[in-house]
């Protein structure tokens, strides 16, 4: 454990104890300002790397479709921030640009990231652009040697950018390989969860607010964010707040994969999505510090107003819809928030604005046809019908009618109660002082009374 802490400290070059206030509480805002990465500075670094400043599309045809289905006067204008236009094909370039910049400024020869997702390609691309080395550690295949096609594609992309890719079978001990590689190389831990990594996403929220205002003279009423590890939601929300959009409702959306175990060798290839799902969304929201840094800068419950889930079939369905109605072929995982935005727009007035905050690139392996064909090969029943019938790991149901698109509420109180349960399992709340309660109120974006209510509610 001591050795682990030592490796981590060296690999991140940052002493997290300086932010600690009590055993539980730490100064989050002070940590977020670490390194002097103001939003202006971040914009400048990203501009230099060709990151950000992505187009905002108005999805006019999908808005038309929504208005055909919605009651008279309902059906908000839907906008989409095309993050696939970033150098590595996703919003992850924003955080990678800052992580790699920071590593280089601090004299590291290379960076390492543990990720099976778009972040790997982003780190590899930024490392190439900024002239340092990169190693990506991926959970990639099951015990039969069968790869998730989406992950194989991301591995290929990393290798294309000159990265060394270490691919592992299923299991959380990937972290052991990650630590050992940090120790062997002395490279920087380009974690997804450093303060500057998260601050890198703030420009997404800021740009989005500026672009919506420029086009409509309004602030967005709702922004839907695909939620997994929590960085996307945290960074975007912070950027929106900095842009003065304090009233904008932040809605997290994940694909429902409840029932599948994330560390199960058997379940690994029964999933048709490797990110943007509840398998990350719920645990990371309710205990952010499970991350590969001592304090996770992604703390989604501070900013999330509402959390909804959709099914795998609905994400594939809107991926097809985006291609045929809007002429945009994008990766399925990024369209999680689009699938949620369609039913959410139906609840809203016509003059209101909802923004789908990201897209991701698509290609071999990372495409609805590839992912559905893989699902069939793995015994998943794929059919057109009622998406409500779908069972993660057993069936994928593509809607037969757009009116079947819907969101399922994941109660915010349930998330907050789980967060508190996790706090209680590690700390003695009887000994909490004002600083602890204040910290919890900030963490859960609520007041002390409500926290006590949630704690009692749990015991009932």
């Amino acid at each position, binding site marked *: 454990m001591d050795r682990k802490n030592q490796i981590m400290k060296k690999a991140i070059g940052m002493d997290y104890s300086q932010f600690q206030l009590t055993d539980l509480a730490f100064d989050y805002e002070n940590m977020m300002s670490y390194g002097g990465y103001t939003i202006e500075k971040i914009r400048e670094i990203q501009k230099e790397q060709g990151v950000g400043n992505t187009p905002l599309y108005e999805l006019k*045809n999908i808005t*038309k*479709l929504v208005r*055909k289905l919605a009651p008279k006067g309902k059906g908000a204008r839907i906008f989409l921030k095309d993050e696939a236009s970033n150098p590595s094909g996703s919003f992850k370039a924003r955080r990678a640009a800052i992580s790699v910049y920071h590593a280089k400024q601090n004299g590291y020869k*290379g960076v390492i990231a543990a990720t099976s997702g778009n972040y790997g390609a982003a780190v590899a691309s930024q490392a190439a652009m900024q002239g340092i*080395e990169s*190693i990506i550690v991926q959970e*990639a*295949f099951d*015990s039969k040697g069968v*790869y998730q*096609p989406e992950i*194989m*594609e991301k591995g*290929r992309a990393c*290798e294309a950018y*000159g990265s*060394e*890719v*270490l*691919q*592992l*079978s*299923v*299991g*959380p*001990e*990937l972290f*052991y*390989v990650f630590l050992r590689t940090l120790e*062997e*190389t002395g490279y920087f831990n380009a974690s997804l969860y450093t303060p500057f990594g998260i601050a890198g996403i703030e420009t997404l929220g800021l740009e989005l607010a500026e672009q919506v205002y420029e086009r409509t003279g309004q602030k967005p009423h709702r922004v839907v964010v695909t939620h997994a590890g929590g960085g996307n939601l945290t960074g975007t929300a912070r950027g929106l707040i900095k842009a003065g959009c304090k009233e904008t409702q932040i809605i997290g959306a994940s694909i429902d994969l409840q029932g599948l*175990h994330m*560390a*199960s*060798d*058997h379940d690994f290839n029964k999933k048709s999505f490797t990110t943007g799902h509840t398998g990350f969304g719920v645990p990371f929201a309710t205990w952010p510090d499970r991350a590969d840094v001592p304090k996770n800068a992604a703390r989604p419950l501070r900013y999330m107003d509402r959390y909804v889930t959709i099914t795998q079939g609905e994400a*594939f369905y809107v991926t*097809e*819809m985006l291609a*045929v*109605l809007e002429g945009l072929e994008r990766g399925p995982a990024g369209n999680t928030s689009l699938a949620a935005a369609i039913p959410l727009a139906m609840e809203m007035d016509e003059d209101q604005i909802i923004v789908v905050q990201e897209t991701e690139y698509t290609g*071999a*392996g990372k*495409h*609805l*046809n*590839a*992912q*559905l*064909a*893989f699902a*069939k090969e793995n015994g998943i029943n*794929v*059919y*057109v019908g009622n998406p409500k019938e779908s069972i993660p790991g057993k069936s994928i149901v*593509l809607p*037969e*009618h*757009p009116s079947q698109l819907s969101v399922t509420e994941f109660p915010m109180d349930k998330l907050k109660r789980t967060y508190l349960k996790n706090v209680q399992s590690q700390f003695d709340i009887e000994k909490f002082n004002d600083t602890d309660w204040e910290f919890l109120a900030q963490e859960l974006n609520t007041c002390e009374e409500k926290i006590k209510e949630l704690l009692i509610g749990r015991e009932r």
Partner: protein
Amino acid sequence: MVTVPKGSYVEITKEVLSQNQRAPQIPEDTKKTPLMMKVKGFLLEDGEIGETVKIKTVLGREQEGSLTSDNPRYSHDFGDIVPEIFKVRDSIKNFMKTGDCDGQ
């Protein structure tokens, strides 16, 4: 056996943790399998498939493991056509044209 010449771009596979070294909290099915790692690089000496060999990765780091493939291919693609996607495509386009997914 076919000899893979030194300098070839290959993939090796190695066991990182055996079954009994796996973390206690992981599911039973995963615990029954070793943690395996695959990495690619250039073969340092001639070798045969299945033999323990050493490679240099693209970063020049040395790795040792069982030689599993020579000129490893990326086998992912777009998959066999999934006919259900055509059904969905038609229904979306019909709905936009006629307000009905069947195109009536």
